[in-house]
């Protein structure tokens, strides 16, 4: 039995950054919003015992319970996908704040090149630079200059700490707070980068460098470098998190009806539009129908695609024909080519750190260097970070050391405070056979099909990884480590090997309804009252953590939703 509730103007699915931003903006404008979140409510008080590596990182306290729902994975279109039965490569946040609670806080803008990647690549290198398998590579339909004000708004709301980087798009304002401190490890990177002729910068961070009051009047304290960011919530509120920024603002208006433990199963539809959602109370199993004028789908990347596919909204992407859009251009992040440095007689205070603490260079990002003689496009950031090395997770030993026994123990202790990496974070571009659809066999606990991921690293990724490995090697040699291990090859993707959670695409934006699911307000071409927010809207992933761009696009979507509530219709002409 499903209890039908009274209709509301806007229902939001998922209360992470995207759902939180939209809820704050709409409620501030006087619009009533129902926020549905499948997990629990959270505040800083939840993290009094937050420095518990086992509970939060290795038992995934803040993550979605896979016993109820997971994804299935295969590496090629001809393979059989099998369920990801426990966490490995990526983690999926749960509860108020979502991934915005457990993230590290690295907050970037994408490059001007990213938003016009197809046009600019063809302009400089010709159409033949884009291989046939990458035909899904497209301009985003919006330029960096048009995105700039939304980035500015997001950065001011979250209080991003950073310094202006010459090789990135122009800023109208400096970062709202100065960059984080430079540690001895970061100074090593800086010295090497400078002597190699690069211009290093401190990574922009949502870990506040000083206490800050944002335009909504929310005050937060400075980061204490306690080293418990990724996988953890911040007990100080120093890390930008929806639960300490936009959601309290939305709650304060009295216009947000936040319903936790409310898991949306499907969107209901009528006459080419959505008419609301059906959700289940995860504690009691009771089902509800919530009708709404506008449905904002703002859950995680995977579930955004899955909800639309399970609801029959939008045309599913077919890798054979290239037709359809839902599930298209699933991209990830390429991190091949790093070098690991070990020192015999230097110790760093590696127990301290912050999720976004580090230095980087921009010379090999995007199209900041000439690609005419390399067989890839786009690029990577070269960086050294100091997140804080927690002892269960981080036991770096020189290559060839066994991973157990006397030698492992000796080396892992010897180098525990005497190592650091020079890493890469590279762009991931679409492959026509990397996509998301519904699994034909495996179901969630309610009987709905799981999302199936078909994904493998591409030739672009492998060539880029190899190229970047020479750069990180050069850095390592310049720094002068005693042992340097460089990873030159991008191996196959493995769903249970720890890497990162920068999943993007599936419900992408663009200018052409044949090639994209959304316009640049993240409004669905095929269902005008459905807005789909998140990194799922990225047509490709750049060499950056996705949150900054996700946040900026959410502000733009919030603007679009208000316009739609007044005027109706598609906000952009196809």
């Amino acid at each position, binding site marked *: 039995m499903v209890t039908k509730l009274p209709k509301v103007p806007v229902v939001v699915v998922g209360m992470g950054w995207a759902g939180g931003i939209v809820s704050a903006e709409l409620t501030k404008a006087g619009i009533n919003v129902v926020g549905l979140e499948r997990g629990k409510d959270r505040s800083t008080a939840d993290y009094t015992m937050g420095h518990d590596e086992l509970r939060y990182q290795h038992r995934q306290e803040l993550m979605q319970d896979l016993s109820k729902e997971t994804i299935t994975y295969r590496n090629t279109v001809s393979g059989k996908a099998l369920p990801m039965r426990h966490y490995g490569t990526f983690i999926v946040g749960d509860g108020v704040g979502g991934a915005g609670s457990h993230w590290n806080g690295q907050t970037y803008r994408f490059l001007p090149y990213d938003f016009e990647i197809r046009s600019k690549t063809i302009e400089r290198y010709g159409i033949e630079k884009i291989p046939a398998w990458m035909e899904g590579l497209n301009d985003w339909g919006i330029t960096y200059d048009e995105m700039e004000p939304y980035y500015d708004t997001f950065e001011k709301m979250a209080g991003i700490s950073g310094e202006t980087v010459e090789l990135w798009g122009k800023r109208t304002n400096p970062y709202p707070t100065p960059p984080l401190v430079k540690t001895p490890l970061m100074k090593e990177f800086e010295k090497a980068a400078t002597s190699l002729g690069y211009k290093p910068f401190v990574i922009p961070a949502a870990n506040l460098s000083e206490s800050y009051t944002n335009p909504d009047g929310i005050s937060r304290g400075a980061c204490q470098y306690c080293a418990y960011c990724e996988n953890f919530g911040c007990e100080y509120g120093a890390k930008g998190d929806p639960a300490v920024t936009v959601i309290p603002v939305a709650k304060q208006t009295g216009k947000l009806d936040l319903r936790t433990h409310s898991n949306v199963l499907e969107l209901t539809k009528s006459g080419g539009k959505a008419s609301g959602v059906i959700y289940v109370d995860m504690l009691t199993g009771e089902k509800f129908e919530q009708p709404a004028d506008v449905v904002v789908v703002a859950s995680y990347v995977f579930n955004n695609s899955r909800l639309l596919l399970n609801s029959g909204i939008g045309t599913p992407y077919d890798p054979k024909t290239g037709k359809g859009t839902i599930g298209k251009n699933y991209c990830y992040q390429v991190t091949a080519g790093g070098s690991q440095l070990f020192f015999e007689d230097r110790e760093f205070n590696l127990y301290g750190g912050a999720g976004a603490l580090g230095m980087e260079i921009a010379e090999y990002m995007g199209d900041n260097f000439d690609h005419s003689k390399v067989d890839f496009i786009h690029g990577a950031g070269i960086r050294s970070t100091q997140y804080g090395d927690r002892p269960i997770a981080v036991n770096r030993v020189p290559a060839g050391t066994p991973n157990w*026994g006397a030698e492992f123990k000796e080396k892992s202790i010897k180098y525990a*405070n005497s190592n650091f990496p020079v890493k890469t974070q590279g762009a991931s571009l679409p492959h026509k056979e990397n996509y998301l659809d519904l699994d034909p066999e495996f179901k969630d606990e309610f009987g709905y099909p799981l999302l199936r991921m078909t994904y493998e690293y591409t030739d672009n990724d492998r060539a880029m990884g190899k190229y970047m490995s020479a750069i990180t090697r050069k850095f390592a040699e310049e720094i002068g480590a005693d042992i340097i291990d460089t990873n030159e090859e991008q191996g196959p993707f493995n769903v249970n090997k720890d890497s990162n959670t920068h999943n993007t695409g599936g419900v992408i934006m663009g200018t052409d309804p044949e090639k994209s699911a959304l316009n640049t307000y993240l409004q669905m071409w095929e269902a005008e009252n459905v807005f789909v927010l998140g990194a799922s809207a990225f047509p490709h992933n750049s060499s950056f953590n996705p949150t900054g761009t996700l946040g900026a696009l959410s502000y733009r979507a919030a603007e679009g939703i208000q316009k739609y509530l007044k005027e109706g219709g598609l906000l952009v002409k196809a």
Partner: protein
Amino acid sequence: MSEQEKKESVLDKRSSRRTFIKNSGLTVGGVVLGGALGSLLIKDDKSTTHNTVTQNHAKTPAANPNVALMFFTPSQYQVTQAAVDRIFPEDANGPGAKELNAAIYIDHQLAGPWGSNVKDYRLGAFYKAEENQGPQTKILRKDLFLAGLDSLNTYSNKQFKVDFKELEATQQDEVLLAFSEGKVELYGKVSSSQFFNLLRTLTIEGVYADPMYGGNNEMLGWSMRKYPGSRMQYVAEIQDEKFIELEPQSLNSHMGH
């Protein structure tokens, strides 16, 4: 307290703890004892009687009530102790996983929800997986671990005619290597490497997780690698060119804040 003094106090504590461990007969003896309960109470030390155990316990400032079993039988516990001590052995840095109570940690973990895979996806059929798809076996962690312990003994008896815990350290390493390479029959189609990976993961967790979970005895796992545990801030330390060793603190230090 100056940093140098702090450092010394850490070292003092470590060495006095080491002395206690040695005196209390916790180090490996490798002897067959009377009843299961007796062997558990008096560890492996054949010279220790029930009386001296009582005295030892009485001398301990705070006997650790966490050192008790909620999952293993005493003999399963002993095999686990022997195995974890080869994954993370005693050396010049300090105690091995056995003295750090990693086997107690493992007992407690397997008794709890994680041992029964309650947050894993367990619906649908279990097919044979490609290497990049992650394990697809239905067996629960707690059962996998017990099957692994059985198999350690069966294999040791086949190769060396004695139980795993009676083997020389180098023989134990040989056995564990064979397990890690998936060369040993475990249970049905379950690979011995799957058990080994679980053992390895649990051992490292038992060495380094907060002592609240039963391992990382007296935070010696942390102090060996100069990890300060669960402190609230490192604003000064992180900018210092010198390494600053801090005495570890556990989550218990945040109670009552």
